[in-house]
């Protein structure tokens, strides 16, 4: 029997090292995980709160909204309304995991297995993260962003910078490229580029150009709609990108700020699409590692029971009529699906062979799972791998709530043969960001006229924008665009449902 990793609840840094080594052994040898180098940092509750308010990142530019977050979290934490997470893990290379100092030795083992190996593997291998994030560059880029924002505050004043950032934050959810572009994002290059651009501006600055008389501007009213759209890259769903490139009166530093906010939004884009998978992977990995360590005798029975207790808390899924219910718990759903895949691969029923001919009975659990982890996101993962057995087990059903329907909310499908596919499709759709985020695009600019910016919101299933918020966001948008902005909500038949027009606030514009 192997030596125990620790006894009781206490740990020190020597023990942490042993735990990490043991986890790594299981993770690489038994599970075949491929991870970024790990960096494990032990922090206090206060530091955890700090991290919460800067979206979990170790460094971030300064903005009042993070202070608001902090005040909010602090208040609810002090009142005992909220517990703190056991860990935070950052998609960077090296992969940084924060561990709370209050955790017992068992919890530290769980957390290391969960974050430093589960999440870490997912970050490194999932196609979305590979496509959209640059783990090597993110910390340097955030450092650059922080310094850049600071230097802007020095040069142009805090109020101006804050105004730009406020506006950019309001549009953050629509500052994302949803389709992969031609080249991979390289944040280090990004940072150098910004420096070069500034330097170039300083070098070629010549005040004389300002005094050169301009000829009568050519009227190009004859520009066709098609050509104009092409010039401006329309339609464009990335509003921040559009403003950065085409807003007529923004100062270069403002464009750079928009760019920073946009890059950061993009960095978090994969995380919002892979909550179920990401947590499912990490939970499955920590479960496997902990079980293995227990089998090897490295964790005592008592500590293993402690682990099982927190584990079951994490993967608890209340039913819909339970007071605690607040939607599907991504940990529960993800873990259940991973275990279900394991079952299908090793011990399939006839039903599974019919539904999952590719993986049923393949016997290489980790091979299948690693492939799944690498190539799916929540929506496609659920659409592909949610099995009838799991739907029956969780007793899933689909409700259709049409406000027009007087009789009430219809039960559209339940966990039976007729309903499996419909329930699954609907659940997948619930995890599809394409459906979650409002579909808003820039469709046209009236360049020859009053330069009004025209946006369309394609309304799905009659769900229109919240009026107060929409007006506020549009106000920010108009302030950046500096001319009128119109948002038109259209339904599937191009019927106009509602039109907003907002004019920019009169502010001193940096010319």
């Amino acid at each position, binding site marked *: 029997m192997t030596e125990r990793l620790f006894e009781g609840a206490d740990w020190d840094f020597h023990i942490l090292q042993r735990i*990490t080594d043991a986890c790594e052994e299981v993770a690489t040898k038994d599970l075949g995980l491929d991870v970024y180098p790990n960096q*494990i940092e032990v*922090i206090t509750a206060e530091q955890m709160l700090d991290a919460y308010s800067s979206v979990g990142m170790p460094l971030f530019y300064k903005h009042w909204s993070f202070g608001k977050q902090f005040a909010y979290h602090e208040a609810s934490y*002090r009142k005992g309304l909220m517990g703190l997470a056991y860990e935070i893990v950052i998609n960077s290379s090296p992969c940084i995991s924060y561990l709370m100092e209050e955790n017992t030795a068992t919890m530290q083992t769980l957390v290391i297995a969960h974050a430093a190996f589960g999440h870490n593997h997912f970050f490194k291998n999932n196609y979305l993260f590979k496509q959209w994030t640059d783990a090597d560059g993110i910390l340097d880029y955030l450092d650059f962003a922080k310094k850049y924002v600071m230097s802007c505050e020095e040069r142009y004043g805090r109020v101006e910078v804050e105004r730009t950032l406020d506006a950019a934050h309001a549009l953050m959810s629509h500052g994302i490229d949803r389709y992969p572009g031609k080249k991979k994002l390289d944040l280090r290059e990004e940072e150098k580029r910004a420096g070069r651009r500034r330097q170039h501006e300083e070098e070629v600055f010549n005040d004389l150009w300002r005094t050169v008389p301009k000829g009568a501007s050519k009227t190009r009213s004859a520009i066709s709609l098609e050509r104009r759209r092409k010039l401006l890259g329309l339609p464009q769903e990335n509003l921040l990108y559009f403003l950065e490139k085409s807003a007529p009166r923004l100062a270069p530093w403002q464009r750079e700020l928009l760019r920073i906010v946009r890059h950061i939004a993009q960095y978090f884009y994969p995380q919002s699409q892979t909550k179920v998978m990401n947590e499912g992977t990490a939970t499955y990995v920590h479960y496997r590692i902990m079980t293995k360590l227990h089998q090897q005798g490295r964790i005592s029975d008592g500590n293993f029971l402690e682990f099982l207790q927190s584990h079951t808390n994490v993967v608890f899924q209340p039913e819909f*009529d339970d007071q605690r*219910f607040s939607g599907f718990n991504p940990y529960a759903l993800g873990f259940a699906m991973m275990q279900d895949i394991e079952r299908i691969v090793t011990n399939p029923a006839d039903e599974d062979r019919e539904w999952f001919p590719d993986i049923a009975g393949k016997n290489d659990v980790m091979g299948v799972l690693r492939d799944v982890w690498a190539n799916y996101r929540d929506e496609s993962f659920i659409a592909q791998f949610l099995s009838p057995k799991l739907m029956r087990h969780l007793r899933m059903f689909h*409700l259709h709530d049409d406000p027009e329907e007087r009789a009430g*909310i219809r039960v559209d499908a339940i966990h039976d043969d007729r309903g499996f596919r419909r329930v699954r499709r609907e659940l997948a759709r*619930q995890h599809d960001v394409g459906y979650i985020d409002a579909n808003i695009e820039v469709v046209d600019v009236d360049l020859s006229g009053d330069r009004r910016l025209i946006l369309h919101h394609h309304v799905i299933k009659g769900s229109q*924008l919240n009026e107060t918020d929409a007006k506020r966001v549009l106000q920010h948008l108009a302030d950046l665009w500096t001319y009128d902005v119109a948002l038109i909500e259209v339904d599937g038949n191009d019927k106009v449902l509602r039109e907003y027009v907002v004019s920019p606030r009169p502010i001193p514009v940096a010319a």
Partner: protein
Amino acid sequence: MPIHIIDRRLNPGGKSLENRQRFLRRAKSLVQGAVKKTSQERDIKDVLEGGEVTIPLDGMHEPRFRRDGGTRDMVLPGNKKFIEGDYLQRSGQGSAKDSGPGEGDSEDAFRFVLSRDEFVDLFLDDLELPDLAKRKIAHTESEGIQRAGYTTSGSPANISVSRTVRLALARRIALKRPRKDEIEELEAAIAACTDEDERVVLLAQLEKLKAKIKRIPFIDPLDIRYRRFETVPKPVAQAVMFCLMDVSGSMSEHMKDLAKRFYMLLYVFLKRRYKHVEIVFIRHTDRAEEVDEQTFFYGPASGGTLVSSALQAMHEIVRERFNPSDWNIYAAQASDGDNSYSDGELTGMLLTDKILPICQFFAYLEVGESGGSAFDLSDSSLWTLYERLRNSGEPLSMRKVSERSEIFPVFHDLFQRRETAQEKTAP
């Protein structure tokens, strides 16, 4: 694969402090309103303790495009009895779970905890001490140490290694001290040399270099530099606060309580402006004495009322202990307004000639019984006297208070920023 385990617990905390301050600055007017409201409900002892405040979220709202309404589809776990095609009543279990958790209540109000310092800051933010110009530098309080370049002599503990080595390097280069590799090269050349004559020449050269090395030391006492420190006097502003109170029989507990509240506010306020604040308590009936705080507020006393005695006592204490050129002097007097008629003239004279010229600020607080309507009938003798002095241009501040809740507004009123006064004189 190397794994780094780092202990961050000792890192300086408060990383979010800056963001927090920005948030408070932005929400300032809202938070300030909340602070004042909170402080009115509190006891004076913990009025400045900090704690939870609630502000409306409007204005601190961060808008996003979000949708509501329309047809909704949801997949839920835990079906027990539904089959396809069932209809559920809307008001019942079906609608209990629609809106996202926490969205609703975070919308209208925002609660958070302020620290003590933040609370005091906001509480006193728009207040200003009158006549701040008269700050004096105290002679004793402290002397700071400050770096002042380098010196050629000093204690070994203060040797500046980098500076010393730099100078030594410069000297060695200037005097062409041979470097180690030069000698090694030469030795190698000697070892490789076959020609006897050349060897002799090289050996001589080596000797010469070695001698030179001996002559020119690596570090010479000349090179050594010490960090030099200088003591500089640090300006320390100090203030003394005189609390004068009538403790004659006519002063009730309620009135004393009012006075106490006022003094406490004044103390907190001065404490924030001056590093060093002393308090002198003078109570008086028909004669005055300097007492400690406990006796001041709670000690029994009775007798007639002679305000001039207190002023006289204050004047003497100032003369003995608090030189007006070294101290900022503040005085606050609380009384129910009674004064012996014959004393009026003396009081007026003492004030105008001796007290007011040396004071930064003199406040008179007339306290009354709860309900306080008697005030409006006629002004007390002291009030009439002070009013006359004020009208003749003396810098006196005076207010009447009869309810606890009025203390803060009155205080606030007395110390609010004086821009308005300047504006008046300007045109």
